[in-house]
């Protein structure tokens, strides 16, 4: 059975459910809208900031503020793509049709990742330009050093978040359980761990903390993060690979 056939089949599956449109649509809207809002607010408050904060003001990163919420919709997308197979029982029909489980899982993930990448890139560029428009005089230009990398990286970040969720859902085999763990983790726990001084050193190696470094253009003063933008994205990619390998191992071994 050629992988292309499985990929075509997975494409039919992913485009024929409403949840794809809803989750990806929500990711786009929330990321862009929140990014524009926070950009507009930041512009108004720039004058009140301390000198120090003004120096480390990062217009590119500000316009990506919506990612923190928009990534949650990406997580839901990733979880549902894989998890729905389990919750609906479709997994048995699917695996009866594609007995090679590796082909099945990675075709599914490839299709969902491809779709997520397109959506995330469009979102990333849109949120950058619209956010900069809100910032007025403070705006960065796409031609400035590091900015294109940050915008491109923003798209990769969203895609990797979705992939990580797919891997976790394949490991946990339940959309509810996966969402119950991933949502609070990325919305709260990771932020707390990354900002509390006691856990900061560990927290910065969590996937979203490390990955979001790619969207920074201006490094904050007294920043002691031991990795650069690409290093951070690399750390996130390692998390994703671990999740996918784990998901594959579970699918390969367990009864469907």
């Amino acid at each position, binding site marked *: *059975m050629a992988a292309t*056939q499985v990929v075509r*089949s997975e494409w039919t599956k992913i485009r024929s459910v409403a949840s794809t449109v809803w989750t990806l649509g929500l990711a786009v809207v929330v990321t862009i809208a929140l990014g524009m809002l926070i950009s507009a607010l930041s512009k108004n408050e720039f004058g009140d900031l301390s000198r120090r904060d003004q120096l480390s003001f990062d217009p590119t990163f500000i316009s990506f503020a919506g990612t923190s919420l928009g990534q949650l919709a990406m997580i839901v997308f990733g979880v549902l793509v894989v998890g729905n197979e389990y919750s*609906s*029982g479709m997994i048995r029909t699917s695996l009866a049709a*594609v*007995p090679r489980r590796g082909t099945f899982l990675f075709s599914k993930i490839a299709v969902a990742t491809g779709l997520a990448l397109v959506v995330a890139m469009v979102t990333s560029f849109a949120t950058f330009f619209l956010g900069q428009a809100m910032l007025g005089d403070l705006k960065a230009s796409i031609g400035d050093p590091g900015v294109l990398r940050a915008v491109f990286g923003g798209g990769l970040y969203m895609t990797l978040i979705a992939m990580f969720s797919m891997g976790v859902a394949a490991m946990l085999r339940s959309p509810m359980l996966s969402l119950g763990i991933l949502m609070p983790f990325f919305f709260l726990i990771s932020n707390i761990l990354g900002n509390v001084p006691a856990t900061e050193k560990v927290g910065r190696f969590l996937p979203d903390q490390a990955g979001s470094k790619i969207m920074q253009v201006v490094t904050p003063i007294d920043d002691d993060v031991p990795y650069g933008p690409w290093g951070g994205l690399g750390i996130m990619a390692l998390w994703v690979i671990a999740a996918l390998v784990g998901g594959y191992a579970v699918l390969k071994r367990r009864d*469907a």
Partner: protein
Amino acid sequence: MIEAVGLTKRYGDKTAVYNLSFQVRPGAVTGFLGPNGSGKSTTMRMILGLDNPTSGHVTIGGHPYRRLPNAARQVGALLDAKAVHGGRAARNHLLSLAQLSGIPARRVDEVLGVVGLQDVAKRRSKGFSLGMGQRLGIAAALLGDPQVLLFDEPVNGLDPEGIHWVRNLMKALAAEGRTVFVSSHLMSEMALTADHLIVIGRGQLLADMSVTDFISANSADFARVRTPDTEPQLREKLTSALTEAGGHVLPEPDGALRVTGLALPRISDVAHDADVRLWELSPHQASLEEAYMRMTQGAVDYRSTADRKAGLQQPLPPGAQPPMQVPGQGQPGWYAPPPPQQGGQLFAAPQSAPGQAPAGPYGAPAAPGAVPGGQPANPYAAQRAPQAPAVAPVAQTPQPPAAAPAPPAAAPAPASAPASDPTKPEDAR
């Protein structure tokens, strides 16, 4: 051809399937029967490579399913009608399966027509009834025009027209030389559809034989004879004449006689010779369903118990007696006795042999009556005892006195059990 060898599946300390070996041959519908929880679905899942057997193996056409080349074109399966993403339209569901094995979209519309779902092809399967879901599952199984088909409970939730259709579909598929393996817990359905039967209980093989063999080994044919109601002495006369001729005669509550061991023409001749007129002489066959239930009786995991409605009933008025429990038919775990042939004993369940158990529902009266008399063990002996009190004490004389003078309270109770037997639909087939 599906071949299982020593298939065993354990979930923790629960053994779902134990040492199951069988073959499913092409060109016939093979019925896979067993009570709820007997391991039918687990076996089906192992055939499809969804569950890994703890030990043993199962192959389709010589290959384990997970190594079968282009599996979707060779094997079609209906496992669970609800194993569909409810938000996906029926046609898209089938299309995604078709694309897996390079089946053209045209074929999807074809099978939708075959199962009669063309009008709802664009609707989400969430809104489907159980029967529509089954049809969708069957469509998925037919998609690749496979040589091997597996159906897990295909008629669940179908209307009579649908059941009829599935039945003919299975037969047609088998007639084309395909391998058709159908699980069900309904013997009556399988008796009409299948050519071959594999019966399991508690994950173990109970029977593996053709339906014809199963019927001849397990069903008890009998004739019902009715003499004129107006002349009871004719009935007595015929009873003794038939018994002399070598038949077993059992009275039925409405006055008819149930005769086994004599062909219909012979009964007519005997009646003629005895100068007895007949109002009825009709052939009957005991239900295959009964034979199946008897076979699986010891292997039923989920059995209902009597509903005592504790706390729901009005307290009895003072002085009133609670209704007496009558052992026998209508209560869980009671089945009609096995037919007189040896055949019934072939498939004694591994845990216990219901028909043989001396402490069975017939226990006390039947066993002592039959054994000392040296007769072939006649399960209807209990029924005769109250009818012919002259015989019973003679047969029971070697027994200790405790058994012989049966207390009056105890005697009617066992008798009432077989007496209600004829009310069972013996023509269930």
